């Protein structure tokens, strides 16, 4: 029976090639537009560290007060003095402060040019906290953090470039005219979106090539390579800057469970209370402790453009479906006499349902294949519409291929449901009589 219905379906589709082509195109375009924008949305809204996203938290305290903050949210960065206080208190098993710095690798050969390297100043806990995979060596020690040591962890890419891919642990690197000892080499690792530095990257940027101790960067008076915001004049010089209310640092803590998170939040509240007693704040407590996904959400890491595009293309798909419902209805009802004959010869309603849904499924498969081709083109073309940092994240992988086909067939079957129901309602007597 299946084969017979399939043949019937194909014959019917061939009878009206233009109508069929119209339906296939509507499904194909609708699905392709949705899937292309979905691929971008998926890339920007993904969980960058699924295994630990619920254990990594971003604390925030309101050091600016309601006059200088928006919508009752505390600033998303921290001052140096608060970061130092939280690090010293050490209330989390693992914790790191961090900020982006600019670093230039100065080659030994005086005829070649220095090379700029994206870098972060971090504490040693950064590496185990964020599951950074090491190829050689290991993170520097906590003592080296304490001692402002001149050590670095470098990426595989930088290690390949400078040391030809060999184990470079213990070797030296000249950064901005100062020598640093390599303590470890990591894979070309990055979090996408880069949750730990959303404030400066928006989540999407080229990977960093090296990491050095936070304490060392502060000692060298390295300014942030990202944002610095002050609500009042910090005064002259580096020490005044460190004491100021200027915000430019990120802080992350790892807390194993909900109880630990609750007690850390209590600790933050107590800390702010103390600061208020000391006269620093004149406004009510306003602290946040967000895990990775909450923080991504609060920072609106998915660009508005991505969301609007997805929303508009889903609307587009709905219109294509409404269109398909209309066309299928026209197609099926034109065959009322044929249905009448089949019903009169003993075909049950169920069989009519089966026959017409199968025909619709064939349209869905064809639409899916066209949609897949167009999605492929769309994903290649996202660079025209979205900025490169985001566009390169959109890929056509196996899961997207399957989703595309599935959505196409499911959508077509959904669209076919009403026309099929109408077809099954055809009264054999009426059709036979009018003929």
């Amino acid at each position, binding site marked *: 029976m299946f084969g017979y219905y399939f043949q019937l379906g194909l014959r019917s589709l061939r009878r009206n090639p233009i109508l069929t082509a119209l339906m296939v195109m509507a499904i194909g375009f609708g699905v392709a537009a949705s899937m292309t924008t979905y691929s971008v949305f998926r890339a920007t809204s993904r969980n960058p560290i699924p295994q630990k996203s619920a254990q990594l938290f971003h604390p925030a305290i309101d050091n600016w007060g309601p006059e200088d903050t928006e919508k009752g949210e505390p600033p998303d960065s921290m001052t140096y003095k608060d970061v130092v206080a939280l690090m010293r208190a050490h209330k989390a098993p693992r914790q790191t402060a961090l900020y982006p710095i600019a670093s230039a690798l100065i080659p030994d050969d005086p005829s070649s040019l220095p090379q700029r390297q994206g870098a972060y100043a971090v504490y040693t806990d950064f590496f185990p906290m964020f599951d950074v995979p090491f190829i050689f060596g290991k993170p520097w020690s906590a003592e080296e953090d304490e001692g402002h040591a001149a050590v670095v962890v470098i990426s595989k890419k930088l290690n390949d470039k400078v040391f030809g891919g060999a184990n470079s642990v213990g070797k030296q690197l000249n950064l*901005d005219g100062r020598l640093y000892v390599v303590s470890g080499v990591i894979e070309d690792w990055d979090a996408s979106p880069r949750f730990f530095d959303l404030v400066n990257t928006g989540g999407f940027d080229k990977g960093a090539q090296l990491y050095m101790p936070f304490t060392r960067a502060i000692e060298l008076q390295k300014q942030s390579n990202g944002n610095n915001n002050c609500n009042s004049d910090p005064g002259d010089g580096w020490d005044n800057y460190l004491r100021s209310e200027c915000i430019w640092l990120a802080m992350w803590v790892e807390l194993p469970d909900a109880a630990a998170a609750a007690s850390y939040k209590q600790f933050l509240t107590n800390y702010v209370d103390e600061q208020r007693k000391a006269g620093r704040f004149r406004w009510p407590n306003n602290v946040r402790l967000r895990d990775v996904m909450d923080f991504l959400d609060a920072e609106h890491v998915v660009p508005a453009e991505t969301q609007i595009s997805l929303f508009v293309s889903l609307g587009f798909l709905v219109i294509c479906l409404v269109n398909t419902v209309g066309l299928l209805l026209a197609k099926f009802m034109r065959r009322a006499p044929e249905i009448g004959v089949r019903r009169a010869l003993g075909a049950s309603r169920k069989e009519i349902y089966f026959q017409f849904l199968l025909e619709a499924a064939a349209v869905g498969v064809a639409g899916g294949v066209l949609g897949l081709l167009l999605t492929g083109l769309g994903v290649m073309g996202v660079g025209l519409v979205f900025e490169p940092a985001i566009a390169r994240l959109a890929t056509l992988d196996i899961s997207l291929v399957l989703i595309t086909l599935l959505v196409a067939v499911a959508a077509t079957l959904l669209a076919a449901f009403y026309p099929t129901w109408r077809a099954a309602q055809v009264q054999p007597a009426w059709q036979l009589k009018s003929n």
Partner: protein
Amino acid sequence: MMIKPILSALRRHKAGTILIALQIALTLAIVCNALFIIHQRVSHLSRGTGIDESNLVIVTNRLVGNTENFVPLIKSDLQALRQMPDVEAVYATNSYPLRNGGWSMGARTNPDQKKSTGQTAIYFVDEHALATLGVRLVAGRNFNAGDVIDQDPKKSIAGPVTIVTKALADKLFPDGSALGKNIYLTEEKKPSTIVGIVEKTQVPWVSSFASTWDQYVTFLPAVLNTDYNAYLVRAKPGQEAAVRAHVLDVLVKNNRMRTLPDENGVQTFADVRSKAYERDRGMAIMMGIVCAVLLAITAAGIVGLTSFWVGQRRKQIGVRRALGATKRDILTYFLTENFLIGGAGVVVGSAMAIGMSMWLQQHFETERMSVVYVLVGMVLLLLLGQGAVLAPAMRASKVSPVEATRNA
């Protein structure tokens, strides 16, 4: 008129009628909003920077090495650039229009004022800036070499003299008396005297962050003692490509201890503009494609369904023709029918369009869509519907009266 029989005929095709009307309504909702987004983004794109954007090359670089004082290095770079044969003017700065990053401060007209009168972008420049940018001075004077100070960026930045844009001058001193007045940029109440007013210069940001003050710019005459800066180079007319090709060699020859970003180390202002408006342009393209395909699909849907109806009603059309209806009557019948369905569709659709616009406004802080878009969209879709129905309606009008006598 003919409307009553049309309505009663439509009542027999409820499903098809509702589907076409619904499709028109949804299309209207999306097309209106898409057109609005396109218009908004395109108006961003066409916003003028106030500077002469041709023949302008920008080098972004970071001086490296174990140095405390970068000012002599910057000055020597500028010297080297000015000696290039194809270069007209050069200056070093922290930021420039469309760079999408920079420094902003609140400007006050009274040192004791608590809230600032206007937010302004700060460009640190020297006496060559106005010539390099091609910005016209409308009052007062340009900076001279004596005005330009060496500035530690960690110290108070308010120098004694400043040039502001006309927009900022009018905002701070609405009576038009800005020239010669003092403004206060920092909290230590150090005055900066306005010595010149320029016609127009845009702030670095193109985002909504600065949309209400995108022409409020303050120029301060200073060389910042910082490793990171941009050199703006005005090439002689037509020599942009030559300057672009050689500028880096000249700088490296002068001092190799510098790094440039992997991309966009040396760019023309056209590159800067295209990068700054990447998102706007992308969004406009995307919405344009969606609109075009959507209208095409809706038109195709109308053609498909109307053709089906014509096919179904051949016999009735034949009867009407036999009873004396002219070809024209039949044509008008189908056009009117489509107009009624389309009319219902656009009425529902305009409500949906406004609803969708409000939803976007709430979730994405877009601006409010004007009703004009809905009206234009309504007309557009009604015309589209009439255009789409024309071919099947013509075919219907050609049905011969003989059909009335045929069986089925």
